[in-house]
């Protein structure tokens, strides 16, 4: 890892305390370089999404989660701090796996974050901000004539780009993307990938992906997790061409092969069923489902 470090985890452990304790992440220490795209890969249930959500304290919105260790944004700790979690999350944005428009118009979806943080002078400036971020994700030309229609009426691919624009509009330093293309058709997925590619010059992007090919196409750095443990973190070239750990070699060569999947998890692979996130984090969706 070369350039400056944006985000560091220091012996980060996450435990789901439900009926029985499940350690989803075990003492993971990592450095995420700034202005690069880091892909977090690993088999289902390995703690990818858990790691991602603990990077901006998003898991705090569900009960029964305990965390040890710390995460730092630059020099600033994000857990042992007086800064309220929303301020942290504003600096470390999050794009969910399922493309989700907020129940607002297209325009208001992008303007929402800017508004809650009060980052604009007048409506003209807000218009400019909305337009510039919709342009940034290559959505402006498709939606400029219907900015007042509900965001939910766009196609899923468009909604995912809307989500990116919405997240970028609050000007985060780091952007967390949770399998942002897994729910999309191939063409929409390619558009989102293109957008991510164009963004990684400006932003630090940390992306969870199930697709090894996607990691190869997009990532500057790769983090490989297995059963909550960090196996290997390296720059993408080294990771794919000259993997250090045995497990990485196995994973790269055997990825997609049934032997590996059987060994790694009895849950179905998310690539097959994009709507079903197989990580442990979703196995206990708090009180949301009865």
């Amino acid at each position, binding site marked *: 890892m070369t350039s400056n470090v944006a985000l560091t985890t220091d012996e980060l452990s996450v435990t789901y305390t439900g009926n029985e304790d499940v350690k989803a992440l075990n003492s993971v220490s990592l450095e995420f370089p700034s202005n690069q795209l880091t892909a977090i890969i690993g088999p289902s249930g390995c703690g990818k999404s858990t790691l991602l959500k603990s990077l901006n304290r998003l898991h705090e919105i569900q009960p029964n989660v305990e965390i040890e260790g710390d995460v730092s944004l630059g020099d600033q700790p994000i857990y042992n701090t007086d800064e309220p979690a929303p301020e942290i*999350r504003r600096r470390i944005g999050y794009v969910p796996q399922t493309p989700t428009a907020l129940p607002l118009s297209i325009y208001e979806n992008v303007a929402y974050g800017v508004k809650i943080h009060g980052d604009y002078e007048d409506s003209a400036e807000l218009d400019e901000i909305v337009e510039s971020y919709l342009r940034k994700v290559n959505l402006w030309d498709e939606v400029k004539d219907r900015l007042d229609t509900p965001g939910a009426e766009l196609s899923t691919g468009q909604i995912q780009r809307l989500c990116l624009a919405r997240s970028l509009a609050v000007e985060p330093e780091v952007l967390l993307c949770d399998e942002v293309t897994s729910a999309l058709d191939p063409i929409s997925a390619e558009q989102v990938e293109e957008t991510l590619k164009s963004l990684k010059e400006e932003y630090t992007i940390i992306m969870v992906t199930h697709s090894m090919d996607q990691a190869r196409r997009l990532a500057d750095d790769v983090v490989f997790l297995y059963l909550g443990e960090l196996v290997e973190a390296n720059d993408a070239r080294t990771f794919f061409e000259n993997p250090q750990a045995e497990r990485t070699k196995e994973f790269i060569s055997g990825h997609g092969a049934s032997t590996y999947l059987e060994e790694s998890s009895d849950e179905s692979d998310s690539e097959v069923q994009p709507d079903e996130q197989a990580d442990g984090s979703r196995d206990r969706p708090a009180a*949301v489902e009865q």
Partner: protein
Amino acid sequence: MDRYAKQRLVGYLARGATALVVSVMLFVVGVTIFRGARILLTNPSIVVTPPGTQYMLRAEGGFLHAIVGSIFIVIPATIVSMTLAVSTAVYLQSDYSSERFSDLTNMFLNVLWGTPPIVYGVFVLTIIFATGARQSLLFGIIAIAIFQYPIMTRYTDEALRSAPDTVKEASYGLGSTRFETAQMTVRSALPGVIAGVIMGFARGIGDAATVLFTAGRSTNMPAGPMDGATTLPILIYENATSPNDELVAQAYAASFLLIVAVLALIGISKVLAGRFARYAPGGRHS
């Protein structure tokens, strides 16, 4: 019995039950329209005329007092109850409360929901006696609000729970506070929330037992919040059991008004829900 005979039997039962329910509903609506709409058409002034001093004896004047009573009891009660219900339901979601707490609260709410309305009436009556107050519009509002609260809370809670988690995650991911996120989840669950509020409203406007004890069965126009009042369901009971034919006819007219009001409410909620459903995740696809 072989499997196919069983299947046929269940089919007959289901169809029979549906036919029964639909015909009962048509019969009820039919009777109220036939007997109520007729008097409203021949003498529409009864809905805008306050009762005279001899109302219960000679059907002097109209029943504006009960219409006003219903409106001034149920609308404030619905506003109070809705505010409390939405706040409670938000608080019961996973980002505010533990699963155990919300399960427990929901259990209590179910008990409240199942409590016969007359029990609420007696409960508020106890308060009236204890404070030395009189039956009045205000206590009617309190009783109806308590009656509506569990209904609205349970509906809203279910609506919020069925809203996708990703709305919450997306909102928090932008740096929203819990309150801002709650506003988003309520918005995305708005069709269900509206349905719950309308359901509470409809139940409130139709309930007699709670109001009987708390607001009374006044036959005068209510003069203020501390004055006795009555509502349409109580008027229907009083009038329908009266020996005066004209009062009985007015009872049907009042029933007709109630049914129209409830149907109108359901219509409004459908239109509103349809409008907000476009914004909910899944949008027109759902």
